[in-house]
């Protein structure tokens, strides 16, 4: 047909969306059901941390870095201290390195359990959400017992850790691991590896091919799910991790195939739960006695760092991927001249956005941070007529009318008026 009208429908998801973890905006351009472009707009939660950091000293920065993220708070703090240690050439006592491993892996367990629950929720398995978040409480209690807080436990300091892990903590952690291994992991494997409904829903959804994962530098489970064998703990010979035998986990070891879809990413997370528990057990076996920090007092750190010159990079495998921090000294001052952090979600977002092109709209929810876009909440839809370039904003009422007209084509007896039920989105009136 010659006078076929092409519709490009733009659907904004975010910045504020009930299911989004963070305020970010995705503008999805659709041609029918097929996605032809995904645009990401960030900055709705821009707190200007780097700008604040221009006025903070090394010790204060540690706590500022911790507040970048609530879930990976240990990771940022840890990576920042590694960057400073590399810059100033500070040696960390071995026991402190083991404590860092233990707390880091505990954090990975809680973050992965959280994500497994969120994905279960996104596909409508709320029982999975409740189960995995209930299981997560156990590790949160342990973290609270060790660090005094459920999040932001401030374990690290430059040149070591601030709190020791005592015999009672060790007992509690080993109890927790036994509980997870015997009661939780079989259930989680049953759901995420063998359940036919979950497999049908997550298989081939939001596929990130290996080529795109490499090209767009995807990180963490997103990259490993696509078959990119990299894990900073392994690549970087980080701390004492090589002694514990860490290896990147890919879905190949569990299911035998790598497809790079949401299912594979979940398989990687399940595998990393097992890996984290083993790492903690091995760390307890090998942990030596001794000092936990290189400096007895915080002011000694500042004295040492005032003399430092040079630059350092810290890298760490956070639950979501590689965290990288850069610090450059400012000789004679206790304020670094530059501190820069990069979190793994930043490249992952663009990798996912690129990978969604050509997929169906129905794959967006599980692919983008396991969210479920509530299309009835979509306040407005802009339709651009490809021939004339005219732009028309459709309100909720117009959509309803169009929908009713389509129903009438099938069944002419329908006689309903397009009425908006409920309050609707007040912002729809602004445009």
């Amino acid at each position: 047909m010659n006078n076929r009208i092409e519709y490009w429908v733009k659907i904004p998801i975010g910045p504020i969306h009930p299911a989004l973890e963070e305020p970010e905006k995705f503008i999805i351009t659709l041609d029918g059901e097929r996605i032809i472009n995904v645009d990401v707009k960030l900055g709705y939660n821009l707190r200007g941390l780097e700008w604040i950091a221009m006025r903070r000293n090394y010790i204060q920065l540690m706590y500022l870095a911790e507040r970048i993220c609530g879930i990976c708070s240990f990771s940022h703090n840890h990576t920042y201290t590694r960057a400073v240690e590399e810059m100033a050439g500070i040696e960390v006592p071995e026991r402190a390195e083991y404590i860092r491993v233990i707390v880091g892996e505990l954090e990975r367990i809680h973050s992965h359990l959280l994500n497994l629950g969120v994905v279960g929720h996104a596909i409508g398995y709320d029982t999975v959400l409740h189960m995995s978040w209930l299981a997560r409480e156990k590790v949160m209690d342990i973290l609270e017992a060790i660090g005094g807080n459920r999040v932001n436990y401030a374990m690290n300091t430059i040149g070591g850790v601030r709190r020791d892990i005592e015999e009672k903590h060790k007992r509690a952690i080993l109890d927790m691991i036994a509980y997870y291994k015997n009661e939780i992991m079989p259930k989680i494997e049953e759901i995420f590896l063998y359940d036919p409904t979950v497999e049908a829903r997550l298989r081939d959804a939001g596929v990130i091919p290996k080529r795109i994962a490499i090209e767009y530098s995807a990180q963490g489970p997103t990259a490993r799910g696509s078959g990119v064998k990299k894990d900073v703990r392994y690549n970087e010979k980080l701390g004492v991790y090589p002694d514990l035998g860490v290896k990147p986990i890919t879905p190949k070891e569990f299911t035998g195939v790598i497809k790079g879809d949401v299912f594979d990413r979940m398989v990687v997370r399940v595998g990393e739960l097992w890996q984290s528990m083993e790492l903690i057990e091995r760390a307890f076996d090998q942990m030596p006695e001794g000092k936990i920090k290189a400096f007895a007092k915080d002011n000694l750190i500042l004295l040492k760092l005032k003399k430092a010159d040079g630059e350092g990079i810290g890298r760490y495998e956070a639950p979501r991927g590689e965290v990288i921090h850069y610090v450059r000294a400012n000789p004679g001052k206790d304020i670094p001249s530059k501190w820069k952090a990069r979190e793994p979600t930043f490249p992952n977002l663009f990798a996912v956005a690129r990978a969604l092109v050509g997929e169906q709209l129905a794959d967006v929810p599980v692919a983008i941070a396991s969210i479920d876009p509530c299309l009835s909440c979509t306040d407005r839809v802009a339709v651009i007529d490809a021939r004339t370039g005219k732009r028309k904003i459709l309100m909720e009422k117009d959509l309803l009318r169009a929908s009713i007209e389509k129903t009438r084509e099938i069944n002419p007896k329908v006689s309903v008026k397009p009425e908006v039920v409920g309050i609707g989105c007040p912002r729809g009136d602004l445009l």
Partner: protein
Amino acid sequence: MTPEEFLERIKEKFEVDARISENKMPHPRKRVWINVDRAKFKELMKFIKETDPKAQFSIIIGEDRGDYLSAEYHLELFYEQEPSLSVIVATACPKDDPKIPSLGDVFPSSVSYERENKEFLGIEFEGIPDPRRLFLPDDFPEGIYPLRRDDKGIKPEMVKNAGHPYRLGGAKK
């Protein structure tokens, strides 16, 4: 490929100022730091990409260094071997001509970092495929770059004007 071999390969082709650092962790870890002029910069990055086609682009660290702006690029090469190769390539541009070639066609993932550095430091990336803003709001004043330390940075009156931090002259009453 070890850091030393890599650096030799680079030095055969390019005149660069480079060093290898080593940290004092229980397992020592080497990094290659390369300093290159911006005229040769893109060529060097293409050469690195040829050396390892799977190279991963990690971060651009832009900084206001007084009279010039610097940009440091961290790359990870050969990440399938145990100590992967961690390379930092630094380049710089003067403040009155803040131009650095864009790497959008070599490493597609670099575009988002270039957009970030463009809005925060005012470095113009020549040939960037997508020059829009990424983090800053669309109504943020032009010509102000928050991470600059000179008069193009954030002025104290912008900070005091809480609630409307970027509307000069205060909120309308």
